């Protein structure tokens, strides 16, 4: 494939017009350094990119947030208030004799989910058995898994919290407000959960809220009174879990953390990217979305924005610098959903594009001397 347009060749644009990388980095450094309270957001990056971004936010005494923080924090809120039972998809694959799938759209959040959980195959550890699969609240026609007989508990999105609450109640032998017929169906499911050897509930925080996750985990806690039951969370998009872990070891806190007072402070409301921009508290932003060029969530920012994204994602307004896609165009460490651990992704299509960390280093190298390093 031969690219002919200069536009397409360029790694950087300003208001849609191609500029040299050198000018772009220079410009980006000026914008960020001039700001009183710059925001480093998006953070759709690998671990090295996240490390560079968080150090940059600290150096500039700004704040940082991840584009899928809402989803990470949904689970984290439950962890902080009540605690959580979790396992890895691979432990579920080899051991789980029952899978409780919760909510719709799971394959959207994790396309390889059913291949990884191997629900159509027998368990390997703790005894060889067929698996039982119960899906609460799938969309119409969604509850189809090849080679698996899926039992469903219907619930619309609006009904899901009530159905989960009722299921939890029945597991604990408590009454529900549902009809006798609906309760009977839940009782059968509750019995199945209680008789599982090693059951797992699978959910994506992106599709639920904290109350639902808390209900689910409350039920899991009760189930562990007599059997083993745990959870498989599906993490947020654009490297959310890896960035969360990196943020935790670097600052002690998850994203939505600010350094305005010279030390890290975490506040899920105060340091939310969209609010910071729309309220005018942040006066410049670095938006990083290296995986897929997802645009920022804010409406009409009238602050200068520097965007790091894949070549196709050039913005019409503001400064854009193309970076490689982590694990695709360059070797990158990220949190892998399939192993629930940090892994190295080797570049499948190496490209002459900077990594997120390199782009940030190039910007930082152009700050004037008076900024502490």
């Amino acid at each position, binding site marked *: 494939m031969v690219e002919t347009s200069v536009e397409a060749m360029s790694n950087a644009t300003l208001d849609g017009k191609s500029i040299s990388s050198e000018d772009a980095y220079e410009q980006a450094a000026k914008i960020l350094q001039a700001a009183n309270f710059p925001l480093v957001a998006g953070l759709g990056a690998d671990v090295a990119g996240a490390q560079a971004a968080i150090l940059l936010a600290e150096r500039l005494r700004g704040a940082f947030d991840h584009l899928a923080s809402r989803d990470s924090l949904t689970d984290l809120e439950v*962890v902080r208030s009540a605690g959580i039972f979790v396992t890895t998809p691979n432990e579920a694959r080899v051991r789980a004799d029952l899978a409780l799938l919760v909510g719709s759209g799971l394959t959207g959040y994790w396309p390889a989910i059913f291949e990884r959980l191997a629900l159509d195959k027998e368990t390997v*550890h*703790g005894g060889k058995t067929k698996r039982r699969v119960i899906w609460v609240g799938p969309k119409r026609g969604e509850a189809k898994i090849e080679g698996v007989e899926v039992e469903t508990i219907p619930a619309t999105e609006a009904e899901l919290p009530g159905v989960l609450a009722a299921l939890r109640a029945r597991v604990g032998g408590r009454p529900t407000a549902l009809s006798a017929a609906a309760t009977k169906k839940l009782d059968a499911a509750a019995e199945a959960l209680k008789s599982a050897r*090693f059951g797992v509930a699978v959910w994506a925080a992106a599709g639920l809220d904290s109350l639902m996750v808390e209900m689910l985990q409350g039920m899991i806690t009760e189930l562990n009174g007599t059997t083993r039951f745990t959870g498989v969370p599906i993490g947020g998009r654009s490297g959310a879990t890896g960035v969360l872990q990196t943020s935790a070891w670097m600052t002690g806190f998850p994203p939505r953390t600010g350094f305005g007072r010279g030390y890290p402070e975490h506040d899920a409301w105060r340091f939310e990217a969209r609010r910071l921009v729309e309220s005018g508290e942040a006066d410049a932003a670095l938006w990083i979305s290296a995986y897929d060029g997802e645009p920022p969530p804010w409406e009409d920012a009238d602050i200068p924005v520097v965007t790091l994204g894949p070549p196709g994602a050039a913005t019409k307004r503001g400064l854009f610098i193309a970076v490689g896609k982590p694990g695709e165009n360059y070797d990158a460490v990220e949190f892998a959903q399939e192993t629930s*651990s940090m892994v190295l992704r080797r570049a499948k299509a190496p490209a002459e594009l900077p990594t997120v960390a390199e782009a940030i280093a190039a910007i930082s190298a152009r700050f004037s001397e008076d900024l502490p390093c």
Partner: protein
Amino acid sequence: MLTRLYGGHIVDPVNGVDGVGDLYFEDGRIIAPPVGRTPDVEHDVFGHVVMAGAIDIHSHIAGGGVNTARLLLPEAHRAHRPRPANTPLSTAGWSTFETGRLYAQMGYTTVIEPAVSPHHALHAHLELADIPIIDKGLLTVLGNEDFLLSAFRDGESQDSVVDYIGATLEATRAIGVKCVNAGGVDAFKQNIRHFSLDDEAPGYGLTSRQIFQKLQQAVVATKIRHPLHLHMNNLGLPGNVETALATIDASQGLPLHLAHVQFYAYGTEGKNGFSSAAAQFAEKINANKNVTVDVGQVMFADIVTISSDVMKQFNSLPGGRPKKGVIFDGDSNGLGVVPYSYRVSDFFNAVQWAAGLELFLLVDDPMQVFFTTDHPNGAPFTTYPEVLALLMSADKRAQYCARLPDDVLELTNLPALKREYSFYEIATMTRAAPRKLYGFEDRGQLGAGAVADIAVYELQTDKAAMFRNAAYVFKDGNLVVRDGKVTHYTKGRTLRVRPEYDRAIDDRLDKYYDELYGLPRALFEVQDAALPATAVFAEVPCHS
């Protein structure tokens, strides 16, 4: 650059030195006093004690466990202090950065993270690479995974187990092998809630005793220098000293390290059915020189327990302070994170505190008992200076004892123990003994050729103050701490072992991963490309 420290009291048990003298180092190494050369830099350390950099053999400082604890307890590590120096993230509360800074200020220069699940080794190494100044290493956790248990069950040769251990140490870049509640973590997945030395792991027909013994033998056969690092069954339970004694009896005369033994020093006397059995335990340790122990001292503080003994952690959930926790059933492994608070007014906590000190004072040989709080399980590592002061002063212990519930004092021997540790014994326990336990040749002593990791403390009557703020710390010959403050940030190395093994095991393991997980085993390996360029490894030699 030639540096001389002069006039200090050098305490270097490995070389039998305990007196005033000069110490020379150059290019990161300690050298013999040079003849006819003038030092480039000299430090007058008159009135100071000079020791090798301290080595912490067991402290949970990196990886999924401690990171989960950070996320579980945002309230536990409120950040503090506006930036004092122009150093990135020097103000974060409980970060990798703080870990290096705080250890260095106490004169620690090497710290071992003791519990990393093989599949999460990369995460642990990423954190270790982020910790400044100190050298570090990690233990890889084996003894509950199907591959090994099946090999034991099926009577495979010890050679193949040795190869498996070699391959796992290589893939995880570890310095040794830890085993946690052998077989019990797997049993917990099969809904077993209590698992003792002679209980059988379901599906494998092996008792915990058999699993740890076979693993212990295999670790010896790998020729790595660190013996099996064992977290025994029944941690924390009344009467569990019986388990500890039986484990020592089962140790086959082979080297074995028992982790945080304070948590196993409990009898069943008194009206609460909970008492210190430290005296009985210490006697056993004294009589079995093949066994080493670290204490896991409890101090009265808010802490968080981080343990791969997920069964124990699950059972601890109802008593959590505050009541919450993370229970993780990992790949062939486990992890539980449960917050707790040790209170001086709590009978059980006070017995735990006393039992730990009894062990320190009743084990005769400081080469056999190691200084730990099992950070953060017994206490944060920042309490070390206070613990050292307790070991060095019977009066200080008496002051603490005066605050304990009366019924506690009847169930411990602590008030009767007047032993006070000398500097020489402290240096033995925190420098010479760790050197031997991990087989370090280049540290834990101040002889010529050793790395110039040096801690200098100003002599004070307040021993806690003395050890809290080292007057000088040199790391590889660089001055990194002055008067208790880090003055210069360096990057340390990660220490690992690389025993020889038959690479044929790699094919078998590849096949095993492919069949079980449908994933390449390489996905779980720690590779250079995954780590920052600043991550530097150094090899600890094996027995020849």
